[in-house]
């Protein structure tokens, strides 16, 4: 029960909590400077962006047993919609606005693609080896 409640609060499925923007301490480069750097260099690859999520959401977003929700196999459009709402602070969250605020539309779409492609099963799967070989082959055609 506790875990369920938590899960919904972290993912923002409950509206009990208001978005924390006014409480937060921010720092570093501005949104404009962020955009400038994004424009200056090629976009980090979908894997580069997506792998940054694994420490909290599991390898390939496939951690199904903890409070932070899994991302593997998530519907791409849902992912994009939710991330954009987190970014704009339109969807209440405890952590995800703070994470999402730096990403461009293109970056969010790339991550959405990346996670939609992952199998929605707990990492590690019995067939991990096969899928990694497939993954490696797919890469070599890019």
């Amino acid at each position, binding site marked *: 029960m506790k875990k369920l409640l938590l899960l919904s609060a972290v993912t923002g499925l409950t509206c009990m909590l208001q978005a924390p923007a006014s*409480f*937060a301490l921010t720092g570093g480069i501005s949104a404009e400077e962020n955009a400038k*750097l994004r424009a200056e260099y090629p976009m980090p690859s979908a894997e*580069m962006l997506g*792998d940054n999520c*694994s420490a909290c959401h599991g390898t390939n977003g496939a951690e199904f047993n903890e409070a*932070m929700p899994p991302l593997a196999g998530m519907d791409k459009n849902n992912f994009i919609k939710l991330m954009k709402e987190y970014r704009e602070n339109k969807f209440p969250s405890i952590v995800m606005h703070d994470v999402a605020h730096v990403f461009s539309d293109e970056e969010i779409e790339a991550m959405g693609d990346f996670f939609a492609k992952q199998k929605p099963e707990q990492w590690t799967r019995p067939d991990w*080896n096969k899928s990694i070989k497939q993954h490696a082959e797919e890469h070599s055609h890019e």
Partner: protein
Amino acid sequence: MNKITRRDLIKLFGTTALSTGLMGASSLAFASKSAHIVIVGGGVGGAASAKYMRLLNPDVRITIVEPEPKYIFCPGSNEVVADFDTLESLTVDFNTLKSRYAVNIIQDRATEIDYAAKKLKLAKGDVLSYDKLIVSPGPDFKYDAVEGFSKQLAEGNFPAAWHAGPQTLVLRDQINALPQGGTVLITSPVDPYRCPPAPYERASFIANKLKTVNPTAKVIILDSKDDFIFHDVYLDYWEKMHGLGTPDARIEWISKKSGGHVTKLDTKNRTLTTANGQVHKGDVINIIPPEMAGSFVRMNGLSEGDWAPFNSKDFSTKRDKDVYIIGDSAAADPMPKTGYIASNQAKVVTKAIHAELTGKDIGTPFITNNCVALAADDWGMTVAETFRYAGNNKPFEESYIMSDPTKNPFYRHIRAEVAKNWQRTFRKDIYS
């Protein structure tokens, strides 16, 4: 669990290595022509490198050199100091890396790089040939920054406990044996050091424990800084729960300005002397020393000053393009020295190596650090940091949002639950 077959192993390491006992083998004569990725250190940065390298590339040979038979996570070790978690739950072995990801583990200490021949010497005499060398040996401690302190004392009755292990347990036992009304002194070092909020988390956990078992005891933090991350959240917590600022305060924070910087330890009288000559007596003395890059990094000419500089594009060292530096030893400012960062640096390095081996562009690196810290079991805080690439010879550019003292108990409670969940998820992401 799905294991790599013998045929896969032969393909990866060659028959010679396999027949002489691949895992921990002394024969290092790999027969295969595929690239050999050698990793110094099986901690967070090293283990993440091995696993994420394998996820990208089924063919390369991967070897970790690590002197310890097991790895004990630091995240969670403050909980052990305050005796509400055990070291066992923070300990992982290398079996999954071996069996699932076909990583060769050599239990030894790396000593010397022969850059010209691309060879790595190990303490017991073995020599490894590498195509790419990833270095992640964690930090070393500057014990002599405090006169009278030493490695021997830290391993004895004055534990630093800044690398989870035996010292963590000594400190725990000392806190448990603290006389009624006794004093715990904790020193907090100058930046940069591993896990910036952890000294304050540790102090909070100890004070929380004392509140129930030894309520007149006291924790004093002697700081070599005037500020620290989550300063406002911790001070707010200490005011609310431990009477900070009152004569009976259970916790006291003495900033550098107020004379907190410790210069001297007197083991006989159990005192610490600060820069302004103040003397503090402690029944338990926990000196957290300032840090520098691990000795392997410094001995092999990889560091400039205390830390090892690198090219921002791929974390290759300024010394040699085939030798990479990640984790706490890297001169990665403004990135903090955290496991979260070390693991994400590993992902950048392995992608860069894989791209190079397969003749592709290595792309733009991108790193986040979404860290959690606790004041108590139900009192958490978070910081979400992003580091954007700003050029190969420039530091990454940071932007962040972090917790402020919130009046909403749900926020800090949920953040605390996130913190606890994160520790488990993180251990799984790196070692399984």
